[in-house]
C-alpha cells in the first residue's frame, strides 16, 4: 500500500510491500527491509543490524525514546500484497511531475514501454542543469504529457506510470 506520512512537519511518500512481520518499506523511493515484532509497549523494528523501538501514542510516536509528531493521509492499496484478495488486481496510476518549470530536452521512452524504478523518463533543462527525471516505480508508461522541446510549467504532468 501507499500513504503519505508527515514527521515533524516533513512529508514523505511511503510504499509498503508485504503484510508483516517482514516488510519492504520505501521512503521517497529509498528502500528498507524491516522486520516488525511486537513488544509489551509498542514494536521493535529491525532494519539491517539495527533495532528501533517504536511506540505509537495518538499522533505522537516515540522512536528510540525520541518523540516525533506524526500524521498520515492519502492511504491507497496497491497490488495483491495489500490484502485485496481474489477479485482482480489493483492497479495504481502514479503521476510524475517536474520539480520546477523547464524545458523537456529528451524523452527516451515511448508510451507503452515497460519501465523500472529509477529509469530515466525525461530530461528537463532547468536551473542551469540537465535534470534526469526517474520513474518512481516499476510498471508501464501509460501516458506522456509533454513533447520533446517543449517548455513546461511546474504543474504539468510529465508522465503517468501504471504500476502493478
Amino acid at each position, binding site marked *: *500500500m501507499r500513504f503519505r506520512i508527515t514527521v515533524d512537519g516533513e*512529508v514523505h511518500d511511503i510504499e509498503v510491500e508485504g503484510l508483516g512481520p517482514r516488510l519492504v518499506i520505501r521512503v521517497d523511493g529509498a528502500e528498507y527491509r524491516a522486520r516488525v515484532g511486537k513488544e509489551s509497549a509498542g514494536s521493535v523494528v529491525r532494519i539491517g543490524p539495527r533495532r528501533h523501538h517504536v511506540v505509537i501514542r*495518538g499522533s505522537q510516536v516515540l522512536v528510540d525514546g525520541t518523540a516525533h509528531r506524526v500524521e*498520515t493521509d492519502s492511504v491507497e492499496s496497491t497490488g495483491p500484497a495489500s490484502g485485496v484478495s481474489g477479485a482482480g488486481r489493483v492497479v495504481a496510476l502514479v503521476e510524475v511531475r517536474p520539480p520546477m518549470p523547464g524545458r523537456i530536452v529528451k524523452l527516451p521512452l515511448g508510451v507503452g514501454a515497460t519501465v523500472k524504478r529509477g529509469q530515466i523518463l525525461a530530461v528537463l533543462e532547468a536551473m542551469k542543469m540537465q535534470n534526469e527525471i526517474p520513474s518512481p516505480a516499476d510498471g508501464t508508461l501509460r501516458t506522456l504529457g509533454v513533447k520533446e522541446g517543449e517548455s513546461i510549467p511546474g504543474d504539468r504532468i510529465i508522465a503517468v506510470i501504471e504500476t502493478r
Partner: protein
Amino acid sequence: MIRRLLIANRGEIAIRIARTAREMGITCIGVYSEADRDALHRKAMDETVEIGGPLPADSYLNARNLLKAAKGTRADAVHPGYGFLSESAGFAEACKEAGLVFIGPDPKAMSLSGDKIASRKAMRAAGVPVTPGMDRVVRSVDEAGEIAARLGYPVMFKATAGGGGIGMSRVDRSSDLRAAFESAQSVARANFGNPDLFLEKYIERARHVEVQVLVGRRGRGLHFGERECSVQRRHQKLVEETPAACLTPAQRRRLCETAVKGFLRIGYRNAGTAEFLFHGGRFTFNEINARLQVEHPITEMVTLVDLVRQQILVASGLDPEVSQDEIHGHGHAMECRINAEDPLRNFLPSPGRIVGYREPAGHGVRVDSGIAVGSVVPPFYDPLLAKVIVRGRTRPEVVDRMARTVADFEVLGVKTNLPFHEALFRERAFQRGDLWTTMISDLRIVERMHGRGPREERIAAIAAALAAGRGPEALARALPLQRLPPPAWALAGRKDLHGGADAIPHHRRR
C-alpha cells in the same frame, strides 16, 4: 571609501557580503525578486528593494532593474556576488556609466576573462602553460572531427562564452561527435546566449587546482595560495579544500606566481581566480574566473584574510591590507556545498519549504547559509542552500571534523545532498586525498547509497510499525488522518511561465 553598497545577489553570498560591508561601516542595500519576498538575505540588509518577478531574467539578471534600484536607493557601489551578472562586462560597464563603483575587475578585463578562447590566447602569450586545445570557434562537426583527430581522443567541447562547468561535453570517439556538439551548443545557447564552442584535449584523472589572486589598484599582484576543487559531479564542484595535497612546495610556488603573472598581463584589477588542471606532475591553464568564487571561504580560513574586505578596499581606491610576505596559510580547510537536490533521484532539484533547520557548530566550523526555518527554497535559482566550511591543523583532522559536522547538519522539508557528503567522507580514496574530477562517478559513490541517513531509517521504522499487520483501512484508523494542505511551496511558480500572475503565497507588501 564607499558608503552605500547595493548587493546584487541573493542567498548565502548576499548575507556573507553584507556582513563584511557592515563591519566596514557601509550601509547595505539588498535586492529581492517576488519569489524571495520572505528570503533570509533581506534580513541581513539595512534596506531592500524588490527588483522584479521570480525568473532571474526579470530580477537578478535584469541589469535595468538593478541599476534602477541602485539609483532609487542612492547606492554608490555594487557588489555582484557570484553567478548572475558577476561576469557580465555589459553590467560592469553600465555600473561604471551610472557612476557606481563596481566591486570587481573593469569591463575590459572581465570581457577578456569571459571569452575562454581569448583568455587561453592571452595566457599562452604570457608564457602560462595552457591545456592542449584549439583556440578558435568550431564551426561544424566536420571541423571538430579534424581538430579532434589532431588532438587525439578523448576531447571536450567547451562554450567560449561559458564557465562554471556548464556546457562541457566529453567525446571519446568520432561517432559521438555530432551528438556532443549539438548538446553542448544547446546548453551554451540556453545558458550564455552564445552557442560558440571550442575544443580541448580531455585530460583523464586530472585534478582541478585554482589560485586566488588579488591585484591592487597600483597593479601589484598578490596570491592567497591555491584551492583544490577536484570533487565534482557533472563539472559542478561539491567539495573544495586548501592546500592541494598533490603539490610540492616548489610546484605551489610556481603555480601561484604563474597565476599572478597571468592576471597582471591582462591588466586585471581586484579579486580573481585562475583555474588549472594538474596532471602528470604539471599544471595547465583552464580558465579565469573574474569574480569572487563560491569556495573563497576556505582561503579565508587558512590565511585569516577577509577577501570581500580586500575587494571593497581595492574598489574604493585603497590598498589591500596585507603584503605578499604577510600572507601565510595555516593548517587545512575544506568546504562542502549543501544543495537542495536529491542524491537518490539523480540529484533532482528539491525546492520546497524548510520545516526544520539545525546548523552544525564547534571549533573550526563556519557555516555560510542562505536559509533558516520557514525559508522557501524557490525553484528558479541555483540549488545551493549553504556552505559548510571546516578548518583544522591537518587534513585528516579536517576530514574527521567535516564528517561529524555534516552529520550534525539537519535540514528538513527539502531533500539535500547531505547524505551524499556523508557517503563521500567514508570513501577511502577521499580520506587518503586521492582525488580526481570524475571520482564520484568512477567510484559509483551515489549508486552505492541506499538511504538518506539515520533519520530516514527512523521514518521507515515508524512506517513499518504502523503498517505491520494492517491493511489500508486499519491504517487509516490507526492514526488521526489529516487532510494535509498542499505545501505552500507547491504553489510557487506553478502557473504558466508566459503571462499568468505567479502564485507565491505569503508575500507581504512593504
